[in-house]
């Protein structure tokens, strides 16, 4: 998958969880949970959905590498690309 395709997946899943947030308005380098106002449960659901769609395990030990929208996109591209 290309980075663009993965970004489309990430956008779609973010929209599922935080439909009231406009992705164009967020700071892609800032804390993902703050920018989308999501809690631990939402984040876990997001990871579960991405893990299924992209077929990557996304272990909890890697959560530190998924801190912002861009960091998450880098992580997904590195593992699913």
């Amino acid at each position, binding site marked *: 998958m290309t980075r663009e395709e993965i970004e489309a997946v990430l956008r779609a899943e973010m929209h599922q969880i935080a439909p*009231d947030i406009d992705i164009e308005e967020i700071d892609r380098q800032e804390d993902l949970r*703050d920018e989308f*106002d999501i*809690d*631990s449960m939402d984040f*876990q659901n997001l990871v*579960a959905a991405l893990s299924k769609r992209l077929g990557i*395990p*996304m272990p*909890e030990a890697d959560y530190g590498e998924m801190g912002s929208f861009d960091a998450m996109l880098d992580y997904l591209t590195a593992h699913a690309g």
Partner: protein
Amino acid sequence: MAAFVMPSLGSDMDAGTLVEWLKRPGDEIHRGDIVAVVETQKGAIEIESFQEGILTGYLTDLGRKVPVGTPLAVIREESEDEPDDAALLKGAAPAAEQQAPTAPVSAKPVTLDVEPRITATPEADGARLKISPAARRLAQASAVDPATLTGTGPQGSIVLADVMARLEQKPAPEAKQAVREGGEQLSGMRAAIAAAMARSKREIPHYYLSQTIELTNAEAFVAKVNADRPPENRLLLGALFLKAVALACRKFPEFNGHFEDGVYHPAEAVHAGMAINIREGGLVAPAIHHAETLDLDTLMDRMRDLVARVRAGRFRATELSDPTITVSSLGDRGVEALYGVIYPPQVAIVGFGTPVSRPWEQAGDIKLKRVVTLTLAADHRVSDGHSGARFLNAIEKHLQMPEKL
């Protein structure tokens, strides 16, 4: 023969609009079946049946807004012969009273030596008001002072119909609760929270305690359990918090129950209300039933399911009306401590702040440790700081042994 009634929806809601029937006349009804859906200030709520039998007819039309306790449909027990709807309709109010679902509380209430009311009413003068439990519940939920009602029941007792008659004279609840603030009307959800919290602060003498506890064991346990699990089966620290509180409630019944009309009823089971933030604003704290008996994985599944249904705006009436204690956990993105407001008629709310790293003394050394601030807001009519401190220490003890949760 029994009426399927609009159940209590928590102390901050007194009415709901019937929007959907999920069972039709002739259908067999089992205990726990979802029979109807009502629209409330907190979203759509599924109403379960507490009876077994055959649904023989509807008593309320779709789209109608009805107060708590109103008969919605007739359910005939299978052993009964001919349905007699006319008789039931005539005696609808008493039937409704018998069937109004209540939280399972211990059979022997503990009477406390406190004045039941602040304002002087005939009740406070010693002459106990004759009022049926369902009528009292509805009066309380809808802010009607029972002392101002004339009872039409046996020996002049106040029955559900008397309260309903009064409510029909009153303006709609929205009009009553709507408050102007900066020129904007409060939303239904905000008005419901305002009503419950104002009542709490007016009636409940809160006291507050806090304790900082170490999380090393709990976090290591979660990391270990989650290491080889797919994301959808992973535990969150919040499940450990909820379970630790539920277990501590077993030993400290003075924090788990309902205080109503000057009487504290400790609950036998722990129905832990889980405070859930709603994206559009506001929050609800529906119950996870029998939380003290669930293993961590089951508890986590229930929490996931509850959050998903709250986010979708659909949960069950029993979940809203019968929590026996509330647990509010800020999660990863909050502040260090939260001091809750007790949700009446409950008597305690336990708060967990956001876990942080702090210098921590251990055997003469100072190390950086992960800690969380645990707080308790409790009802001084029922407990005091001494037992509150022991309750918090018990929660801490459970969290230090996560493998036993």
